[in-house]
């Protein structure tokens, strides 16, 4: 359940003499980004493109609805769900407050059990560490467990540049990798593909796919099993992420479904785990909270099929060499933010994606980051803050906090109660503030100032109201204006404008019949007060 992108060995390289690969790309791939946290166009433009893709919207609509329903059923059967959320949220808050101590405690325990701990300030440093370990083991191929952290640092591309092929072993990641595509969901990265597309991808790119492969999911899964089994049995080096790391025991946890994680964590002689510094829990017993919260929120299962826990090296069982890479890559900047730091509590369940009305329609690619959806909208711009995020409208990531209706569904389902809507609002305010100081003439600010002048005086407001009634003749039978001239077109480009009423409230009030003094007062807004013709 933890993630990544493309198979470097299969990706056409510049040096293989192939002409410009994109025009002949048969699977509509997303061009591979230089920066996994900032690619493509800004959200408004990217969303417009993905909204036009009917296939994508159908696949996503079905998928999010199915997972939402499954999650609701298995969450409902847990009588103490809210108590678990409260505990999960508080534990994560403790982790952040005590992070320096917990990190050194984790390091001590991993080292005491025969592991090697590395620290990486940023993506380049983490990639360097992993590449050096693979080279030292003489490996030109590594098998990978799905991991968001390695996706965030673009590990596969970095390894490819060093001549090392990273093979994704999660079925969905394999599909994405073979198609030279980008993932579109944290949990089910190939959710934008349907079965016949997947069959076509396997037939074209897998090499050993049976020629009579059908599009039955079971057949497709079995083809992937056969394809990967050889690699599992011969791989020398595996790379994984981690769902949790226990400070007081040095134990790492990977939660998964297919068994590819167990294969990678168990069979190769060397294991490298890349983990964000925020993924800690203080004690082993804390797992009793998160191993309940994560599977039900994520896949809508009572428990995922396989969870692996390991502590350093166990002689005779599993890898004989274990490396843990602790990754910052912008996390300490997020941690420094009083409001935004709770984004680091995220356990990558992706429940917020599945309930988000925006994500459900635009899909993961529109967010231009390996972290899509509501959590991506708060995490991505903060992670990239030191390289320009939340710094003004020029940064494509600055538009991400607007990729939300603020409906609050994400907060309701979040297993660790991250208040995503509040952080979104805070990030929006910051983006506006950052822009205010640098723009010259700001039409929006000017309009607000004018509105403030009008509204601060009763006479001026009445005059403005009467002026607005002049527009009551506009619009069609639905009493809406869909196309207006500039500057109102800025509004009507994406929404209708209701036609103003034929008269103002003040005019109606002045014209209503007098109330007899001995009559009991009725509510002012009582419809009975309004003559029939007005209703």
């Amino acid at each position, binding site marked *: 359940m933890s993630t990544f992108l493309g198979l470097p060995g299969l990706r056409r390289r510049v040096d293989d003499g192939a002409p410009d690969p994109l025009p002949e790309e048969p699977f509509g791939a997303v061009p591979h980004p230089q920066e996994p946290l900032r690619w493509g166009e800004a959200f408004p433009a990217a969303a417009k493109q993905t909204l036009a893709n009917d296939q994508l919207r159908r696949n996503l609509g079905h998928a999010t609805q199915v997972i939402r329903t499954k999650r609701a059923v298995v969450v409902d059967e847990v009588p103490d769900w809210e108590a678990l959320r409260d505990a999960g949220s508080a534990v994560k808050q403790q982790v952040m407050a005590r992070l320096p101590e917990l990190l050194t405690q984790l390091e001590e325990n991993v080292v005491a059990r025969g592991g090697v701990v590395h620290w990486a300030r940023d993506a380049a440093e983490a990639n360097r560490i992993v590449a050096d370990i693979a080279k030292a083991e003489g490996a030109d191929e590594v098998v990978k467990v799905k991991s968001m952290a390695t996706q965030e640092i673009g590990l596969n591309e970095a390894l490819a540049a060093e001549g090392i092929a990273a093979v994704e072993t999660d079925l969905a990641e394999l599909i994405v990798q073979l198609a030279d595509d980008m993932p579109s969901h944290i949990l089910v990265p190939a959710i934008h593909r349907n079965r016949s597309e997947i069959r076509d991808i396997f037939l074209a790119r897998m090499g050993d796919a049976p020629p009579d492969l059908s599009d039955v999911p079971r057949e497709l899964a079995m083809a992937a099993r*056969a394809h990967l089994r050889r690699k599992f049995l011969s791989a020398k080096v595996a790379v994984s992420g981690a769902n949790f790391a226990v400070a007081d025991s040095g134990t790492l946890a990977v939660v998964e479904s297919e068994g590819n994680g167990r294969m990678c964590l168990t069979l190769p002689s060397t294991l490298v785990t890349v983990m964000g510094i925020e993924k800690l829990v203080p004690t082993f017993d804390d797992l009793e909270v998160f191993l309940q919260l994560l599977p039900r929120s994520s*896949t809508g299962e009572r428990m995922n*099929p396989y969870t*692996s826990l390991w502590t350093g090296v166990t002689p005779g*069982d599993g890898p004989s060499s274990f490396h843990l890479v602790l990754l910052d890559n912008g996390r300490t900047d997020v*941690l420094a933010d009083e409001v935004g730091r709770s984004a680091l509590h995220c356990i990558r369940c992706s429940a917020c994606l599945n309930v988000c009305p925006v994500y459900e329609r635009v899909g993961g690619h529109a967010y231009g980051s390996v972290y899509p959806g509501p959590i991506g909208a708060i995490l991505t711009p903060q992670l990239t803050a030191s390289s320009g995020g939340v710094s003004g409208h020029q940064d494509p990531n600055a538009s991400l906090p607007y990729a939300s209706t603020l409906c609050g569904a994400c907060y309701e389902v979040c297993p660790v109660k991250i208040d995503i809507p509040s952080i979104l609002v805070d990030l929006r305010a910051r983006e506006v503030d950052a822009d205010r100081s640098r723009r010259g003439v700001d039409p929006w600010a000017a309009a607000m100032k004018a509105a403030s002048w009008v509204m601060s005086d009763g006479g001026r407001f009445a005059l403005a109201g009467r002026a607005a009634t002049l527009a009551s003749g506009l619009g069609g039978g639905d009493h809406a204006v869909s196309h207006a001239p500039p500057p109102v077109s800025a509004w009507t480009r994406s929404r209708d404008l209701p036609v103003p009423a034929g008269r103002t409230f003040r005019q109606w009030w002045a014209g209503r019949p007098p109330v007899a003094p001995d009559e009991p007062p009725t509510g002012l807004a009582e419809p009975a007060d309004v003559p029939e013709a007005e209703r």
Partner: protein
Amino acid sequence: MSARDDVLNRVRAALGRPGAGTTASGVVGTAPHLDEVPREYRTSGEHPPGSPEVLDQLVDRLVDYRAHVHRTTAADLPAAIATLVTELSGSRAGPGAPEPDNSRAPELSGPRAGSGAPEPDNSRGVRVVVPAGIDDGWLAALPDGTDVVRDSRERPLTAAELDATDAVVTAARIAISETGTIVLDGEPDQGRRAVSLVPDVHLCVVRADQTVQTVPEAVRLLGEHPDRPQTWISGPSATSDIELDRVEGVHGPRTLHVLLVAAPAR
């Protein structure tokens, strides 16, 4: 400055601790306030370990995830294991034989397709791998010709050798009824992690008194030895990556048999 010191200093700066400099973008944060962790959640179930309610729930949840459950007694266990192994030999009997699995679609390839291992030699008996510390009595009724291979940390089989076995029989550390989960912790009766992973069929023996209702009950027992490598198993391996259509049996054992052994009558 080393990357370690640099990252730790950035963390300290982010939390507003003095003398640590700033984060990468030059910020000094504030110390978060610290609340006690409320632990109002259930730390045990309403039913005691091994009670009929807990056992029924475990069976229900295992079946829901398409594991095969066989309720038996200590006396009947060897015969139950022998029956399952015999069935395996039948399913290996020839081409086109059904996979020992409740697949809902026609099977594409044999149990070890693409593994590079030789095709099953149908003249030999079923090859079963067991961890060296298993109760030998469990294997007492195996049919003649069954090839039993032992594996231990001291004398481990290679991955290729494990790939050439048909099934594995292990004990378990604990089971959780609410989630339908069985946990192995690598002790001699449960074996190395690879042993319960590579063979296509896993026969797992769970004693009734090992079954608890809730996750916290299990975590607290497992926390007594957190350094042991643990594998939590909830049904056979599965994927929902293609249109969220669940397919059981991907890389781990495609068939999981749970032999639930009743407590001896008093």
